[in-house]
């Protein structure tokens, strides 16, 4: 029985695929070019399931995939019931509160809740609750920065890699919430039921991380 790996498509796949290849786990055809949703590995031990980054934890938690790769941002937001034994060290970014330089609340009405645009409503509300700041969260699906630029929100909570998009839109980082990167995750049942294979994969990828 092959070991099924949920692979996030898009930007993360561009880093995940060469990382796995450097670890000796190579797909039978290039994952970033294929339109197939399931691709076996050349060695035949693994099967890659190509899924949206935001869906990878769900496929693993529900046992459709035995393991997978997911960003820590998605893991914190969704809090799936999975094991997260390895920080893979790529797709590094920061979860931040950003906005226009002069805007971090309302001077007009200091009691008005902070309006926040984000793809990560749970992370945003938990962070602001912890800071004891009243907030109103607007869940957006993409291009979150524009929420602050056009005045939909006072600030955005989003991930930042280089900060170029923020700068180009005249936004600055007000606060840093958490560092994020890609993680190897496992379905709990698969971890224990296929312990030997699960640990073999972990060891291969641990060595890959060590060898940089």
């Amino acid at each position: 029985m092959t070991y099924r790996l949920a692979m996030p498509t898009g930007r993360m796949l561009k880093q995940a695929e060469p990382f796995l290849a450097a670890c000796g786990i190579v797909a039978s055809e290039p994952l970033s070019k294929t339109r197939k949703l399931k691709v076996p590995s050349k060695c035949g031990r693994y099967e890659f399931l190509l899924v949206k980054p935001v869906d990878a934890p769900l496929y693993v938690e529900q046992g459709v995939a035995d393991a997978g790769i997911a960003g820590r941002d998605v893991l914190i937001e969704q809090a799936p019931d999975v094991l997260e034994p390895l920080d893979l060290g790529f797709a590094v970014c920061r979860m931040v509160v950003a906005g226009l330089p002069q805007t971090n609340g309302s001077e007009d009405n200091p009691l008005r809740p902070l309006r926040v645009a984000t793809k990560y409503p749970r992370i945003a509300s938990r962070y602001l609750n912890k800071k004891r700041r009243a907030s109103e969260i607007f869940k957006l699906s993409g291009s979150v920065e524009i929420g602050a630029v056009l005045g939909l929100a006072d600030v955005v909570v989003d991930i930042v890699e280089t900060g170029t998009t923020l700068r180009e839109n005249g936004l600055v980082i007000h606060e840093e919430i958490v560092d994020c990167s890609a993680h190897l995750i496992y379905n709990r049942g698969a971890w224990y039921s296929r312990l030997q294979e699960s640990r073999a994969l972990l060891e291969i990828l641990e060595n890959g991380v060590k060898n940089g």
Partner: protein
Amino acid sequence: MRHLTFPPGTELAFGPQAERLERVSATLADVFRGWGFQSLQLPTFDVHETFREIAGRHYRLTDPEGRELTLRADFTQAAAKALAPLLAASERQLRAWYHGRVFRFESSGHAARVETTQSGVEWLRADGRVFDAALLALADECLVACGITDAQIVVGHAGFVQSVLGDNGRNDPDLAEALDQKNPSRIREVAKRIGIDDPTLLAKLPVLCGGREVLNDARELGVGDEATQALDELNALADSLESLPLTNGLLFDLGEVRRFDYYSGIMFKVYHSASGSELAGGGRYDSLYQSHGLSVPSVGLAFDDVGLAGVAPQRNRADDTTLIDASSPDALAQLVAQRRGGNSATLEGNA
């Protein structure tokens, strides 16, 4: 016309799936009775104080007279409250089995269930290591009786984890969560935040998982006296179980943390490749009855009946119900005759 729905995370079943669930629960009850456990029926409504250890996860209700109520959030704690007077009045051992639903709030995640059906046992005044091994033998027998022979019984020890966590880490929920996720980088991150100088041993807990060889691996890491004693107990347990042996697999996971902190000795969970969540859990809790002024060494376990029914081989009962036309003049007489003959029968159609 009203279109009403049920809240997310609640249990709803009808037809073959519901039959399977009922059969699993009945099978577990048979095994429990076979081991000398007596039925314990507990109320669904309860008061908050019963579940104060899981404050924030139990539901809060107010009845029309203003009384604050909750729904049963954990069988073991409700059973402790119910059975404490009997234990105080007599020195004898008590063996109770239960079946019913528990209700715990889960923030809306993937398929998080707020309502689960459990069947389990409380073995009270179960003093001695033989009861630890017996509990796992019981769990194995339950699995086999439900047709499951390829699950993994994963055993840890509360004393070992508590000892390695130390005074600083013992009560930190973030550290417990990082351990539960087997996430060494987060374990180091939280350990640093709460002032644990050397998190090396803690960060190794996630990999202390496998056959009984991990007990020796752990010993070689130079753990303290309390942890060594826990490893001795696990070794003795492994010896006892090897002589049986169990039908399902047995693994040791020294990084295992339970979500309730009343466990004091061995702890276990049951996993299966077809399910991401545990099918059963249990262990030893010798201090639970102290809050009732009693010293009652105890072990117990609980099965997630729905999870078990989802994994158990699907043996749907053939529907051999005789359908009797309700418009027939002697429909009722036919039905009663069939039933008195011990056959499955019902009325169908319009009279």
